[in-house]
């Protein structure tokens, strides 16, 4: 029965959110509702989109972002609880297994956002720091040709919302993956390590180097000197970018974080140089 399976799906989602009492009410039937009756629930626009999303996304949330580096391709389109591939909400077409299910191949309808798809999957890449560009811009434009909100201005409110979400997601993914520093931070984030903690460092050698570097940029006024400094800093950035790759691959997260910290300092300097040029 559609209703009971939807109820089951909703239970999984709300259980995750800690709303068990609400979910139990839904499963057991009308008489046990505390705050919303089923008709209220279905009439509410927002709730309806949540419902649609859950219908498509059940099973995806179980796997989340902690999965191993070996990509399981079937998670491009997260399966339903029963293990089936999701279907397009518009035409009922089945999701493909080889590419992320952001828009339906058959009817072109934009699908609701799937939170378990990570940025690397969107661009068909392995979860690695060394991605060698691999035509990121081309793929980005291809996605936007299918998902951009401008393409759905005559479609339903629901689909417009999906398009806004998916388009924003692809933009985020593209901006994150194309910059080595952001890519590195994202990779660690996928592995559960956060690097943006606001701590103070006192390493005298490193800080002295960074201070000197920023002072040099500050005092340089002609483009020749600036370009020279830029080249030097970019080289250092590359060194630590490679060092990050190595550390990440070998699972040395402390070293990886240290590399990112240095990369960020060099990145700031490069940014300042760009502003001056």
């Amino acid at each position, binding site marked *: 029965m559609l209703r009971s399976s939807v109820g089951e799906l909703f239970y999984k989602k709300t259980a995750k959110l800690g709303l068990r009492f609400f979910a139990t009410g839904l499963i057991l039937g009308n008489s046990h509702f505390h705050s919303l009756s089923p008709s209220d629930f279905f009439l509410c626009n927002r709730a309806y989109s949540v419902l649609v999303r859950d219908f498509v996304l059940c099973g995806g949330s179980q796997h989340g972002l902690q999965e191993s580096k070996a990509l399981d391709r079937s998670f491009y389109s997260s399966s339903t609880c029963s293990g089936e591939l999701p279907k397009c909400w518009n035409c009922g077409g089945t999701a493909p297994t080889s590419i992320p299910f952001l828009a339906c191949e058959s009817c072109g309808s934009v699908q609701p956002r799937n939170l378990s798809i990570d940025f690397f999957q969107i661009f068909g890449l392995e979860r690695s720091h060394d991605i060698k560009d691999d035509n990121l811009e081309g793929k980005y434009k291809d996605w936007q040709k299918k998902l951009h909100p401008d393409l759905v201005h005559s479609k339903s409110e629901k689909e417009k919302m999906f398009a806004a979400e998916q388009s924003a997601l692809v933009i985020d993914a593209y901006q994150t993956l194309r910059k080595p520093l952001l890519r590195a931070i994202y990779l660690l984030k996928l592995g559960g390590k956060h690097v943006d903690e606001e*701590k103070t460092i006192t390493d005298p050698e490193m800080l002295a180097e960074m201070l000197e570097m920023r002072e040099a940029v500050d005092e340089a006024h002609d483009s020749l000197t600036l370009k020279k400094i830029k080249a030097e800093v970019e080289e250092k950035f590359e060194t630590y970018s490679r060092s990050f790759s190595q550390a990440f691959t070998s699972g040395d997260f402390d070293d990886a974080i240290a590399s990112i910290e240095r990369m*960020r*300092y060099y990145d700031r300097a490069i940014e300042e140089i760009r502003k001056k040029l």
Partner: protein
Amino acid sequence: MLGAAGRRILGFGLGKRAPASATAWRGYHERVVDHYDNPRNVGSFDKNDPSVGTGLVGAPACGDVMKLQIKVDDTTGKIVDACFKTFGCGSAIASSSVATEWVKGKQMEEVLSIKNTDIAKHLSLPPVKLHCSMLAEDAIKAAVKDYEAKKVKSTGKTEAVQTDKVANA
């Protein structure tokens, strides 16, 4: 038409901008803007000078570097001068600038009790910029620590210096 041109010519001499509207538009408190536009105590002391303590700290999350230096009167333990050099956002620059102002004329032990919350309150820093004031607090402590460490190292030489002073007096 003439009026507008006339206003433009006159307007030139009236200063860079109207303070109130600029700060409201930019979202920085006027004190932060003040420290940014009129930096006090930017500079560098000779870090090898025995009466100078250098605090060098960084915030890796935003790529900020902050150097705060104090010049201490060896006999009284009073901070007679301070300077800073900060590469970071306006809030970080302002925080270190305020720090140098506040440590001047105080005893070293006294400045250790300067809290980042005091700096943040003085500058009306938003929550997202609180760590900038923390960095300034850490810089003060690092400068004092550096001075003390240097003093310990040079304790052996102190006696010789005293003798010299007495001879020359």
